[in-house]
């Protein structure tokens, strides 16, 4: 891991975030919606909840996580603006 460049680390981070982005929206919200709908979250069917609520919350967390992780990476590589 040590000899990866700033850009390579950024790419890995983006890839990890977009994997989660894909799983919660396209995975849980669309492709796996039927099996997930047999699980309930209060009055919500779980697949339906991911499609209309959950995926949006996860998107928000992902964007802030990315900003936080990149700030750390900026420090690690000592890139200043």
């Amino acid at each position: 891991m040590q000899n990866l460049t700033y850009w390579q680390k950024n790419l890995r981070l983006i890839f990890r975030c977009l994997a989660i982005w894909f799983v919660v929206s396209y995975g849980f919200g669309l492709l796996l919606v039927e099996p997930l709908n047999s699980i309930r979250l209060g009055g919500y069917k779980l697949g339906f909840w991911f499609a209309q609520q959950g995926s949006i919350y996860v998107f928000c967390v992902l964007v802030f996580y990315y900003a936080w992780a990149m700030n750390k990476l900026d420090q690690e590589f000592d890139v200043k603006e």
Partner: protein
Amino acid sequence: MDLKTLTYIIVFGTFGLYFAIAWWARAASTSDFYAAGGGVGPIANGMAIGADWMSAASFISMAGLIAFLGYGGSVFLMGWTGGYVLLAMCLAPYLRKHGKFTVPEFIGDRYYSDTARIVAVVCLIIASVTYVIGQMKGVGVAFSRFLEVEYGIGLAIGMGVVWVYAVLGGMKGITYTQIAQYCVMIFAYTVPAVFISLHLTGNPLPQLGLGSTLADGSGVYLLDKLDQVVTDLGFKEYTTAVLGNDINMFAYTLSLMVGTAGLPHVIMRFFTVPSVKAARASAGYALVFIAALYTVAPAVGAMARLNLMTTIEPAPGENLAYEQRPQWFKDWEKTGLLVFEDKNNDGKIQYVADPDANEMVKVDRDIMVLANPAIANLPNWVIALVAAGGLAAALSTAAGLLLAISSAISHDLMKGVLTPDLSEKNELLAGRIVMTISILFAGYLGLNPPGFAAGTVALAFGLAASSIFPALMMGIFSRKISGKAAVWGMCAGIGVTMLYVFQHKGVMFIPGTSFLGDMEANWFFGISPNAFGIVGAIVNFATAFIVGRITGPAPAEIQAMVDNFREPGAAGGTQEPIPAHAH
């Protein structure tokens, strides 16, 4: 105080606020005019992006769409928020690092070609003009319904308001006005939703209310009740109804996400923040501010649908007598957006899925948000607030779009290509003149909407998804992709998308000129024309890849430029936030 007076006070009160802000935030330089001087903080920028992004369509139409599509409406919720994840990670930081004013300017620099820049300008103008027509119509409709002035006069007032703060303040004025507009909008959207959620479920948070039990003591979950009510009448089950088929929903969501990330009026907001760090953070704040409305919308939709159904048929088999219909029903009948026809002459209202027996001949989706406060018996000031919120949504988006259009013309076409020796003062003047012409043009189109107006918002997303987004992505993530490859890619992507839309919807949407017909049977894998942008994007990527292989890589200095904007502080040491004199 009666509703009309109250509405006038609230709406013109908000206009006064916008004018005051515009005067305070006048633009003095081109940097102010195009990018608010590069000095907008991330939270403020996030709010401005939220207002810029959430148009009349988000505020008025989306909850209504979800109310009638149920689970199928999820494509809009995920599509219009998920695009910000792409924007935050794949585009915004690098575009900000490059530090120019407009999207075509970035494309022109990266692909070292005026042709690429002009192609991007054309894509931008088509996408933004089609979008702005919808906003202008929204302004006219909101005025004519709530303030009872004529559509044309309402439109003229709206144009005048936008003109004052957009021409005076440019991006700076628009940004600070949009912050105020966001507050008006979110307040106006949330207040009725909280009241309705409280009334139906006893839970004040609509996001939780949607998953709660009904407050009538039955212990039944709201969504289960809604599923049962709609299926009893022959409609598709609310929580599982798909839009078209599974592939269509997948493609639709992806097209909206990619289109969102490629819309120039949103991207150019990231040029207004002081640093790369602020660009990343402001994408996060923008998404939170957008999510504040987007997570409430499904609750508004479901609750409005339930309220509508139970008003018409309070208990199974007991239908509302037409003579006893409530006041809001009569009000909306006058507008022609709600139409009842007593087919079996029993004097009662039957609202069922079977078109032969259904007596609610027309229930316009757009009335759901606007009529919601009245259906739930909320006080008049809430109804007046919704009018001000709808206007804020339409005006803020129109201003952002108009700025994108006028900067593409004054900065990219005039200063960039046609008359490079334009002084900064003259460029600012040109920007203001072009902005005025754009507003008049948009107003004209709002007054005489072309026949294709209904299909155009979808086309705007398709165009952005198939042209601008792939060009930006490749420009950042590939060091080698060449100018020729990008130009061919953009043309191929746009071409395929437009061809597909035209062949199913008619050339320029003129009825009768579609050569394959608007039939699902002829759709490519059952993908509706609105969802086709993603296929255009794939064609764009593939074409650029092949042309790039044949014509060879970009020159070394361009590759060095890519390396430079990939890292916040790389090469050249300290960089000015945004040079006051670009070039």
